[in-house]
């Protein structure tokens, strides 16, 4: 709802493979002397601008025992500076008719405002101010801790599906920090202090750890000049280190878990496989996995899973596949099957596995492949309808180890994927030794 948490979740990740545009003609890229990257995306159809500042600090960069501090800190960024009182930041943006918010994921924390284009200068002044001058009281931290515990209660503890997802994430990653949820474990959130927050701020919030993305009715050179005025004088930090996280060892064994909860009415089966991500200059395998996700369980009626489980048989009421292509480190390729009435979770899982096995043998149908290529091409056109969406695409990519060039190459790499590429990637990733299978079950069914 507010100051939201980016989540790696079934159904919440829009199908990224079909949403990234090229648009080299309307995108400009600069780097300030202090190391802050600047991306400007022009869209002159309406007098609106979105400013986003992305920090290359996410849940997976936190110190052990401090889970949730990246997200906690995101909330504290609204608590004021030496110049701006507590919560005045949002008040100022709102007085300009703007909206502002922020979100945190495993790999980044981002802040944004959407305002009339002639108010950009003020937004930059505010955002630059809180990059270095944050000033909050012990009491502000204590109250916000309560808000975040309420947020965890609302988003996770009240929702058995979110609890299952958390448990599956923890089982998926044997060593990599992606196994800890973005919002953090409750007991660790409850223990975070004002001093923890200030130490975190000093360590990670600096221009050379940030990316500015401005999208809308703006002139790139004017944006650059404005950025130099507001962000340019901020000193870079010499404490920013390469983001090297503990890597996964070889995964040798399938993991399975069952979450039973009295609040479950509609059980389902979820499966996540460890999967490689888009890497700078090397996006081919991820492109093949993106096409694979579309083929197996993309939106619509014609995916392999939907056809097999909802049309050829009445095994499921819903089936889908998701792939997280943008992440700093390898993440997941996921499947979900919601069984039809009278179909057990065991039978639903067996049917899902049979579809996967058959696909690995037969490969994609040529007509399905052609259709997905057409949709990829159209998605570049449709994506241009939302400058804010483009800003998100560029920001997420740049905060996850990709470059502007990688983003602009992506559509043509997707177009170049062959059925053979898809099958090579599928055989590698759809391996149960890499996988976690989770059942969300009713209490009755579990007996």
């Amino acid at each position, binding site marked *: 709802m507010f100051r939201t948490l980016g989540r790696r979740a079934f159904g919440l990740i829009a199908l990224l493979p079909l949403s990234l545009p090229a648009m080299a003609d309307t995108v400009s890229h600069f780097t300030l002397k202090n190391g802050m990257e600047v991306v400007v995306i022009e869209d002159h159809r309406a007098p*609106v601008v979105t400013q986003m500042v992305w920090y290359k600090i996410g849940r997976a960069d936190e110190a052990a025992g401090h889970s949730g501090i990246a997200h906690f800190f995101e909330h504290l960024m609204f608590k004021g500076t030496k110049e701006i009182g507590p919560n005045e930041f949002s008040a100022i943006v709102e007085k300009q008719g*703007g909206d502002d918010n922020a979100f945190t994921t495993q790999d980044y924390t981002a802040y944004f405002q959407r305002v009339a284009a002639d108010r950009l200068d*003020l937004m930059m*002044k505010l955002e630059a101010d809180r990059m270095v001058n944050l000033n909050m009281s012990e009491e502000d931290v204590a109250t916000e801790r*309560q*808000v975040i515990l*309420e947020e965890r209660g609302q988003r996770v503890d009240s929702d058995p599906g979110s609890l299952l997802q958390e448990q599956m994430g923890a089982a998926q990653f044997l060593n990599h920090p992606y196994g800890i949820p973005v919002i953090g474990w409750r007991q660790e959130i409850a223990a975070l202090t004002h001093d923890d927050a200030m130490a975190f701020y000093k360590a990670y919030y600096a221009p050379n750890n940030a990316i500015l993305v401005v999208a809308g009715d703006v002139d790139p050179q004017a944006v650059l000049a404005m950025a130099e005025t507001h962000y340019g004088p901020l000193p870079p930090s010499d404490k920013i280190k390469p983001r090297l996280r503990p890597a996964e060892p070889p995964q040798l064994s399938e993991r399975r878990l069952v979450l039973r909860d009295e*609040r479950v009415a509609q059980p389902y089966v979820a499966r996540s496989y460890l999967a490689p991500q888009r890497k700078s200059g090397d996006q081919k395998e991820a492109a093949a996995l993106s096409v694979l996700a579309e083929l197996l369980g993309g939106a*619509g009626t014609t995916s392999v899973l939907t056809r097999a489980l909802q049309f050829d048989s009445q095994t499921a009421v819903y089936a889908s596949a998701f792939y997280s292509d943008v992440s700093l480190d390898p993440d997941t390729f996921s499947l979900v099957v919601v069984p039809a009435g009278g179909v057990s979770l065991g039978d639903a899982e067996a049917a899902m596995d049979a579809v996967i096995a058959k696909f690995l043998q037969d490969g994609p149908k040529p007509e399905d492949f052609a259709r997905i290529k057409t949709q990829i091409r159209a998605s570049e056109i449709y994506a*241009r309808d939302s400058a804010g969406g483009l800003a998100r695409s560029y920001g997420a990519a740049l905060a996850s180890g990709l470059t502007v060039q990688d983003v602009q190459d992506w559509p043509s790499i997707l177009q170049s994927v062959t059925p053979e590429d898809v099958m090579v990637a599928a055989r590698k990733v759809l391996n149960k030794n890499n996988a976690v299978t989770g059942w969300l079950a009713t209490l009755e069914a579990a007996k």
Partner: protein
Amino acid sequence: MKLRIAFFLLALASPLQAEVAIQEVTSPKGIKAWLVEDHGIPFTSLSLDFKGGTSLDAAGKRGAVNLMTSLIEEGSGDLDAQGFAAARDALAADFSFSSGEDSVSVSARFLSENREQAMALLHQALVNPLFDQASVERVRAQILSGLRSDLKDASAIAANLDRARSFGDHPYGSDGSGTVDSVTALTRDDILAAHQGALALDRITVGAAGDITAAELGQLVDALVAGLPATGAPQPADVTPQQKGGITVQDFPGPQSVVLFGQGGIGFDDPDYYAASVLNEIIGGGRFTARLMTEVREKRGLTYGIGTALANYDHAAMLSGQFQASNDKVAEAISVIRAQWALIAAEGVSQQELDDAKTYMTGAYPLRFDGNRRIANILVGMQTLGLSSDYPKTRNARIEAVTLADVKRVAAKLLQPQDLHFTVVGQPTGVVSE
């Protein structure tokens, strides 16, 4: 202090006017459509609205319009569901169909290069859907799965309780998706009847934005809706929501409670509507600085988020709000809300709150009109409210005209602390039905 001075100066900058050029188009066959033409990107967004929606369900057929709407894209003419989806995807067109209390909405997005084929496909879906037995059973099973989930979902339970309490036997008093029993009993004839009743020419509103001219849109609309019946099912009567304050608690397991609260609202055609919309913005609008957000979240940490809205249906008006809170915090949150309701009814709001809300509302308004999809939806919304096409040029002046005395007067009239009702689903500490 430098920064503060700069903010002050900018706050005085005059609010933007929405510079959106709306064309009123009348098709050769006389159907009205609004258009914002923009040839910058080679596609068009189109929105259609059929007034009535799930409120047109015949007696005993609850959920028929919803099931029918979900079946529109499941095959038509000589294409089965798979064939239809394959044809649509090969054109890279997007269609969506949804039903609500007051309308069936259709929206489409299609490339200029294959506009005619995409619209021919949509026309076939609207006018000649198959409703074949296999599709009916498949989609019925999906809807039943959702309804069964709702029975164990605190938010859905709260919404259903609140609807029933507010609107009783009126269609607004129950979930438009129907119940497990009513949906199970629906027949193909019921679905056909819902189609004839809900998708008729006497209730259609059209908005379009993007790469299309007025003449092209006129032709397109005529072809798209050719063959739909001239008249459909009768619209429901107006209804006054139940005005009885208190608390209804429904037990549900979990660490938090879902709370819906509300009372009667104010009609869109009421001369005080604009003052009321400013008042709502101050109490619980979309800003972090709204009164309830400040009192319940920022000062006390009782919730992650709280908001209110003027909920204006075609046949009723409510002032509604919602939040979610840990069970041990619900009682305090309710008492804070009650106190604020009484305080604002008695004293109104401050000049600062009014000024801030007005600059926000007038500043935010022009920002809505970005992107073909958003514009097409707004064009439909404006027409269904009966607004004129120059409304975007006059709307901010109406907000600007609201005075502190107006807000105080409307607050005293609209906010009725004794009518404010809370529906609580959870296991709240120290809160009982009253």
